[in-house]
């Protein structure tokens, strides 16, 4: 859906997004149900679950058969003014995202959950129930897939971003040692060839480590998901869905991996973990697209 389409639709239907909130006065009072997660119906205690909205509007369950939506009433203006210009710990986006995460975690501590992406709002309880009906089978399947599991993030990172990296090796300026410029074109070419071979070797070595890490860790996980590797020196990023009962083995694997990596100074990689997370990376619904 393009922005133009969306804007046209907004004009027709009245309620609108926070992004367009300043285009119509009616929006200021528009309300909706902010949805945090789909969950199994259980005896849940939601009294202390954080809320995106005002403190009076605590999250509650909207049940449909054997699944439920965890949602809280919000004024849509709460989601107003979200900007990516400021992503520090105290930015509005960060605070809301943290609240969303805390709410999902509070529920995940009690039963299995499918976290919904930040910013999911349905119009009212009837819409929530229609949503649960339409997604029932897939939600059940995913809920049983993640049942008893938590998500752990694992990254391989080049130890020092200033150290040798595939992108830096092979630069002509780094080929000769200081004070020892190549004496001839032949020597230059030989040096260049050698540098390229070293770079290829380093890349292959690191790729082997990545493969080894994944092959090892996934044996202790119910599922895994590739993540975009980004950030300084990050070569590989993945998420593992690990049963709570299998976490000891998973941790042991990670620790062994870390120890082995320390013995390979040439590769210069270190392992980094994050978690536990609710199963954010394992809640993708089939056929989900931005234009669904």
């Amino acid at each position, binding site marked *: 859906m393009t922005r133009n389409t969306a804007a046209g639709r907004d004009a027709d239907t009245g309620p609108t997004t926070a992004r367009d909130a300043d285009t119509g006065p009616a929006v200021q009072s528009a309300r909706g149900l902010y949805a945090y997660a789909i969950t199994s119906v259980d005896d849940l205690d939601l009294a202390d679950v954080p809320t995106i909205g005002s403190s009076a509007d605590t999250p509650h369950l909207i049940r449909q058969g054997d699944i439920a939506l965890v949602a809280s009433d919000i004024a849509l203006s709460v989601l107003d003014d*979200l900007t990516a210009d400021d992503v520090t710990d105290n930015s509005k986006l960060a605070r809301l995202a943290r609240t969303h995460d805390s709410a999902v975690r509070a529920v995940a501590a009690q039963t299995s959950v499918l976290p919904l992406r930040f910013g999911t709002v349905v119009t009212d309880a009837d819409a929530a129930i229609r949503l649960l009906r339409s997604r029932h089978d897939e939600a059940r399947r995913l809920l049983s897939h993640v049942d008893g599991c938590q998500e752990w993030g694992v990254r391989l990172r080049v130890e020092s971003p200033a150290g040798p990296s595939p992108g830096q090796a092979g630069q002509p300026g780094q080929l000769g040692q200081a004070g020892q410029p190549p004496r001839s074109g032949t020597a230059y070419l030989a040096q260049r060839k050698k540098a390229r071979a070293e770079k290829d070797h380093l890349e292959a*070595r690191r790729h082997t480590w990545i493969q080894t890490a994944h092959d090892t860790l996934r044996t202790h996980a119910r599922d895994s998901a590739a993540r975009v590797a980004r950030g300084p020196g990050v070569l590989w990023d993945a998420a593992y869905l690990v049963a709570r009962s299998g976490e000891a083995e998973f941790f042991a694997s990670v620790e062994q991996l870390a120890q082995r990596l320390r013995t390979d100074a040439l590769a210069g990689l270190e392992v980094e973990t994050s978690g536990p997370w609710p199963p954010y990376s394992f809640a993708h619904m089939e056929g989900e697209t931005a234009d669904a």
Partner: protein
Amino acid sequence: MHDAKAPQPTSGEPTADQLTAHGVASEPITPQRASIADLLDRVVDQGAVVSGDVIISLAGIDLIRLDLRLLLIGVDRALHPRTERRTA
């Protein structure tokens, strides 16, 4: 995400068997405080999507969803300036 066939470890490098050897003492992972990047990467970029953007009517369901795609691009740029995006 990975080739079916792992590259052959070269001499001196570990094999998966070595890594999974049992009996090596280990400590549990110490949960690190989630960085804001990790948090947003998951909360904003992952999680089940049950609707399209903005307001949609999907099979009679009226859903409102923020158009977060532009926001996401901005977050990515702000968190990872000058970082080359690579997939695993």
